[in-house]
C-alpha cells in the first residue's frame, strides 16, 4: 500500500514511491548525499593544501584544545541519541516526549555551537585568522580550519533552528512523525560529518 503525501482527494494522482518512503524523506537523503560531497570536497581541499605545504602548523595541544574537541564530539554523539529517542517517541505518537527529546537535542546542539564559538574566539585572540598564522607557518591552516568547521557550525545552527520548527509543528499537530524522522536524518548527518572533521582537523593537527 503506498503512502500518499497529499490529501485523500489527490491520492489517485500519486504514484507509489519506488523506495517505499515518503517524498520528503527521499529528498532529505538526496540532499544529504549532495552535502556529503560538499564536505568531502572541502576536506580534500584541506588535505591537498596540507600535503602541498612544507611548513604546516599543528597548533593544538591535548589540553585544552583536543579535550575541548573531545567533549564537543561526545555532546554531538549524545544529541544523535536523543534525536533517536525523539523519533521513537514520534512513531509511538507520544507528543510530550517528542517535544522533550527534541528539546534535549536542541540544547546539546546549542552547547556544541557555543563551545565551538568559544574555541574560535580563543583562536582569534591568539592571532589566528583566515590568512593569519601567529606560529609562523603556512597561512592556509586558518582558511581550511575555519572554512570546514564554519560550514559544519552553520549546519549545526540551522539544524537547531529546524528542530525547533519541527518540535513546535509536531506539538501543535501540524506535522507528523515522518517530519520528525526526516529532520532526524539531517541531524545524524551533521553528527557523521563531525566524525570526519574531528580526526582530520583536530587529531591530525595535534602537537
Amino acid at each position, binding site marked *: 500500500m503506498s503512502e500518499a503525501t497529499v490529501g485523500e482527494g489527490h491520492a489517485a494522482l500519486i504514484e507509489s514511491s*519506488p*523506495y*517505499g*518512503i515518503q517524498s520528503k524523506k*527521499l529528498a532529505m*537523503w*538526496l540532499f544529504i*548525499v549532495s552535502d*556529503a*560531497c560538499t564536505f*568531502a*570536497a572541502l576536506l*580534500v581541499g584541506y*588535505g*591537498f*593544501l*596540507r*600535503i*602541498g*605545504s*612544507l611548513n604546516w602548523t599543528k597548533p593544538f595541544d*591535548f589540553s585544552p584544545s*583536543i579535550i575541548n574537541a*573531545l567533549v564537543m*564530539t*561526545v555532546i554531538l*554523539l*549524545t544529541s*544523535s*541519541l536523543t534525536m*533517536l*529517542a525523539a523519533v*521513537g517517541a514520534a512513531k509511538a505518537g507520544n507528543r510530550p516526549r517528542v517535544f522533550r527529546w527534541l528539546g534535549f537535542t536542541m540544547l546539546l546542539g546549542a552547547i556544541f555551537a557555543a563551545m565551538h564559538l568559544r574555541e574560535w574566539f580563543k583562536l582569534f585572540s591568539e592571532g589566528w585568522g583566515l590568512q593569519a598564522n601567529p606560529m609562523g607557518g603556512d597561512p592556509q591552516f586558518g582558511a581550511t580550519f575555519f572554512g570546514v568547521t564554519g560550514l559544519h557550525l552553520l549546519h549545526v545552527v540551522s539544524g537547531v533552528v529546524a528542530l525547533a520548527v519541527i518540535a513546535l509543528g509536531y506539538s501543535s499537530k501540524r506535522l507528523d512523525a515522518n517530519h520528525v524522522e526526516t529532520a*532526524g*536524518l539531517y541531524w*545524524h*548527518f551533521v*553528527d*557523521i560529518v563531525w*566524525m*570526519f572533521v*574531528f*580526526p*582530520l582537523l583536530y*587529531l*591530525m593537527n*595535534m602537537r
Partner: protein
Amino acid sequence: MANQEPGMKFNVAIWVGLLVIVAIETVIALQHPPARTLLVSLLCLAFLEAAIGVLYFMHLKYESAKLFWSLIPILLFVLFMMDHVWADAYRMARMSLLK
C-alpha cells in the same frame, strides 16, 4: 534490507560503540605515529563510524535495499574521483622544495 527497527537499548549500545571508536582514535593520535599511518588509521575509523551512523542511526539498514544501492555507490564513486588530486599535491610539495 528492510526489516524491523531496533529499540532504544540497541541504539544506546551503538552510541557506546561510537564513543569507543572516538576514544581509540584519540589514543592512536596520542602515540604520535608517522603522519601517513595516523591518517590511514583515522580515516578507516572515521569511515567505520560513518557506516555505523548511516546504517543504524539513519536507519538505512532498515530501508529498502533499492534506496541503499541508489545512494551509497554513487557517493563512494564521487569520493573515489576526488581522490585523484593527491599526485598534484605531492607535486606542489616537490616544487616548493626545489625553490
